């Protein structure tokens, strides 16, 4: 079982949190903080497994994470999951995001966390892995987006126009937004097994 999926950036800012067991908001934040603390102090090029899941459910759990540019993708899993399998799953997740957002960067996750949730929902459901085939995931996500668009129909047009206007100054956005939050590309796939 996957107990939680967390995405946060190099500064520990949460970009997505999905807990498959209920915790209060405060506890969730604390878990995110502690996980960030554990993960961020590790060098690059060390293994991606961390024991000591004191946070969620005790010692049976472990943290499996990957670090892409400015983002950490952390899965908290119990012993029924294969460590390497989960690493692959994270890779599939990131590749899927990359396909869906066309060159994903942290900004995409910042502004479209709902979409990220929808993609994740096609991969993991209730803590169990639902689908690992990227094409299948993308097909389902696309089909749902299409439905959404068709529902919006004419009524959606004005809203789209407005949001287009709002995004007119988007090119400036990266500069307006401080620090290196942005500009992060997911490393190209071949480098991963």
């Amino acid at each position: 079982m996957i107990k939680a999926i967390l995405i946060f950036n190099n500064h520990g800012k949460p970009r997505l949190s999905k807990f498959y067991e209920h915790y209060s908001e405060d506890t969730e934040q604390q878990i995110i903080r502690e996980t960030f603390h554990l993960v961020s102090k590790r060098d690059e090029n060390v293994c991606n497994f961390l024991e000591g899941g004191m946070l969620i459910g005790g010692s049976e759990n472990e943290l499996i994470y990957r670090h892409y540019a400015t983002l950490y993708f952390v899965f908290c899993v119990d012993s029924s999951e294969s460590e390497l399998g989960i690493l692959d799953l994270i890779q599939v997740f990131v590749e899927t995001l990359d396909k869906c957002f066309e060159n994903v960067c942290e900004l995409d996750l910042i502004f479209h966390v709902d979409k990220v949730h929808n993609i994740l929902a096609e991969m993991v459901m209730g803590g169990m892995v639902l689908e690992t085939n990227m094409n299948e995931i993308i097909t389902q996500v696309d089909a749902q987006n299409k439905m959404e668009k068709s529902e919006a129909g004419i009524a959606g047009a004005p809203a789209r126009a407005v949001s287009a206007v709002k995004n007119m100054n988007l090119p400036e956005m990266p500069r307006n937004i401080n620090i290196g939050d942005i500009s992060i590309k997911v490393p190209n796939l071949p480098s991963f097994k």
Partner: protein
Amino acid sequence: MALKIVKGSIDRMFDKNLQDLVRGIRNHKEDEAKYISTCIDEIKQELKQDNIAVKANAVCKLTYLQMLGYDVSWAAFNIVEVMSSSKFTYKRIGYLAASQCFHESTDVIMLTTNQIRKDLSSPNQYDTGVALTGLSCFVTPDLARDLANDIMTLMSHTKPYIRKKAVLIMYKVFLKYPESLRPAFPRLKEKLEDPDPGVQSAAVNVICELARRNPKNYLSLAPLFFKLMTSSTNNWVLIKIIKLFGALTPLEPRLGKKLIEPLTNLIHSTSAMSLLYECVNTVIAVLISLSSGMPNHSASIQLCVQKLRILIEDSDQNLKYLGLLAMSKILKTHPKSVQSHKDLILQCLDDKDESIRLRALDLLYGMVSKKNLMEIVKKLMLHVDKAEGTTYRDELLTKIIDICSQSNYQYITNFEWYISILVELTRLEGTRHGHLIASQMLDVAIRVKAIRAFAVAQMATLLDNAHLLTGNTQRNGICEVLYAAAWICGEFSEHLEDPLSTLEAMLRPKVATLPGHIQAVYVQNAAKLFATVLRGQEGAPADRTVAQETSQLLIDRLPLFVQSANLEVQERASCILQLVKYIQKLQQKDVEVAEEVTALFAGELNPVAPKAQKKVPVPEGLDLDAWINEPPSESESEDEGRKPKGKAVFAKEESKHTKPRYTEVDEKELAKRREVRKAEQANNPFYIKASPSSQKVYQDGVGVEHIPVVQIDLSVPLKVPDQYVKLEEERRQKDKADKKKKDKKKRREKGEKGRRRKGDSGPESEEDITPAHMVDITTEEMPENALPSDDDEKDPNDPHKALDIDLDKPLADSEKKLPVRTHRPDEVLRSPVDDGEGVEVVPELKKKSGKEKKDKKKDKDRKKSKEEKKKKKHKHEEGENLMGAGSEVPVQSEDSNEVAAPPPATTTNEEAAKVSEAPSASTPEAVSGMAVVPPDSEPEEAKDTEPEDTKSSKHKKKKQKKEKEEKEKKKKKKHHHHHHHSDGAGDESVQNGNVEEEEPLPPMSNYALLAENSYIKMMCDIQGNLQDGSQVVVSVIFENKCDSFIKAMEFNVLDSLNSKLQRPEGAGPHDGLTVPFQLPPGISNEARFVFSVQSIVMPQKLKGTLTFIVKTDDSSTHEKLDFKLHFTCTSYLITTPCYSDAYAKLLESGDLKGSSLKLEGVSQPFHHLLARICFHHHFSVVERIGSCASMYSRSIQGHHVCLLVKTADQTVSIDAKCDEPGLLGNVLDEIKLTFSQC
């Protein structure tokens, strides 16, 4: 209208959407909280509006804020509103928000039940999907109970997308509503073979998750998983299955043996590291579970170790880490194979990754030997020097000590070396483990006499350099070592070369900065040293001044300690100060005092066994359990009962037993003390009695290592009165067969637990000692080991405990609250095309019978569903169970009772009970032939159920279309009739089409006459066992034809090479099986026997005998009846549903070989013909078009058999295909025979 919408959305487009919110938050870095609170106010406004789009937008923003840690539960109702929007866009937002913030105590959840049900049955698969996804996150026991049926229906949805989600969510439903597990399980199991790989993977996922928690209940699925493992190519599925096998093998070593080969093949063939790793892991688990010492598996171990080496050598840190992790598992059972890779593991100690270094350290622990210990420790010491970061260094330190001290210093050949290592370790800065080093020093110095001189010298140096250790207050952890040093120097001061200077070192003013307990030891041991110095001077009167100077030194320095804030230090110091002053007076009078002073500290420190206290014999007439005073108030005793380790008990016991000089404390108490002691001294706290040269001591001798212990954590070493110690020693030296004493002891320990007693009763013998050790270890470590079986104690709230349900047991009627059974027959023949209809019909039917049951015998069922312990009860219930199954069938005709056998009887015998799992656990079998009305179920009850059934179904027809319901019902009837061997009332045929107009089917029975004589008649039916590819179940009906009582029936068969009767464990190959019932006159009953078969290609005949006793009023006679069991190939076939698409694929695959058959002059109607084939030969109709039908069946070993049956002018032609031509030929012959007979 359209205008209004457009207008609404124009209003809306200037609302803040999620992107605006995010942007806003980012632009308000300084006053984020304030900004968000204004946003929340806005959101609250938006939520008040009627426009659902506005609400959805607001909820979407709330979901984001929830992630940032804001409580949004106040909007729960709005979330529900958005969830119930008809638009997918909003629905999805609503469900996402719900999945993020709803939980069991969210009260609006109960409002969602109907909405979710509606979404689940939505024609749009994404509505359903979104609802399932959401539900998976917030499902509550109530939701699970209310929606279980709907979800179960979705498990057979036409769309694989829905199927896989429905299958996955069932796990959550099981957790919240454990009662649903048994009814849903058969269908879940079917999904293991779903044509869609995603669904299959989901089913594997769920079952693995279930099985991991309660593996024993899923052992029977092992063959199925085994098949999946050898056939699946999906690595995810394979990994899950292989992991599952890892959990199952400890319970079933035979499974392990079977696994080795395919796993080894996978290891060789796969390129996926993840799969390889899990295979290796499971092979290791298998090897561990197989009792050690199986030489033929050394190849597997070698293979694993080799592959792991490759992983460890890989540049990928992850593989390296996992490789080491798996290696440590092998190490436990096969240390030798790992030891050869020492180089590699030492290399890993240099790795830059700390996790990897720690793993490597773990491994090293198991790899040391006498030969390499010093080398390894030397390497580790190097690492200690290099190590940065105290955590890792401390870890290294403890590992060094662990490695050296393991198994009672087994690997240390040179204790001088060890002492110097310990001394060297004291140079470590800032370690937390000073205490550990200290206890090692004490342990070695005390137990290894030969080393004392060396140790004392080293300790003296340490004391002399104490300022180095204490110089920095930061590293006070290490000063614990001084405690040991001071004590060793004092106690063994006779070995000191220059006691005076050591004494001087111990009384330096700097000492006063040490922790109190160390100062106390200093003071006490200074006195010991003083005694030694005096004695040393005694012989030489010339040096009397030295003695006096020493006294003066003490008198000068001790006042410092007298002022100590620490009570212990103060008390000892003032005591000793006065003593020394007195001695000084005597010295001035030239009185020889040395002897007297030495006498103060005289006496060898004697070894005390950890159990020494307990071993003290209880004097005659002393009852330790009797109260000395009046028993305390009841609260006290209650406390004692509940938590025997409580403090109160401790105190109580203590005071109670102070009177006897040798405090005899009760067992729990002692155990507790032992634990405390162990916790304090991580290492073995025994003394070694006789010193001599090093290590040999530990191996020889009658439990020498067991003897002694000293409670070194006391400020003054504990001394036990000599008499008892001597007694103890004597006893140890005596022969272990010293019965007298043992008996005495046993008598004394009568009240103790069995395993304790075993350990305690014979401490002398090596054999007895080992278990005694183990007892300690297990009692201590158990709580940490999260063994699955421990769950009860571990966490009473563990949801998985509730899922510990026996799934092999046939479903009882009480479980029909989720009546999968009612619609099982649909599934058998229905292909997914029909499902649209089924989806709507089935839930209603389910509820119907669910309600009926509830009404009728709710409480009764409750009790029953738990556990059937009494056979009688069990029997009764079984009967009802079957009744339940047949409740849609009209009342059975009388004569059916005669032939029909009561399965309940079989369950009286354990073995037979196992057999009976087959029919109920697998859909097809349940349908084919097993729906028999038991003779001992009252016909009234049968009639009762029928009208009630119809009645309740009428109630339920509110929304339901009447015709549909009726059609459904008829279909059910069809099945039951069809499979019912003695059904005279059957009036419909098998097919799923509109067949009402077709003629009734003649009665059929699968029970063939086996043998008969004047006393008894045997009928039998042979069925394959779906769960085990090598088993066939033979149901035999015994009918008593005479007027006498028949008893002691014994069923025996002469096994052939291919087919063997399965006998209970321990029975010989020629022993008969006792039939588990007796037969009164005129009564028949059924028993089942399991046979294992190897090849199923050929029919088989087995000769057998039934022996029995016929008992009349005045006499009884032994009789026997010979019979011949005929295993036809048909009996190896199992009715298996097949969808037409899968069927077509199968035929296209080209794996099947064809054969054909022509039957001339068959005059029966086509549907009868099909029904016959279905019934007698266990086929199912895939499709029927006109006078042509395709049929399918599968053998217990997974061979597919496909038939194409055509009829024209009384000629029936059957084209058949099967992947096993031999089997096919025989089946066709048997079909031919069937039709020639009628």
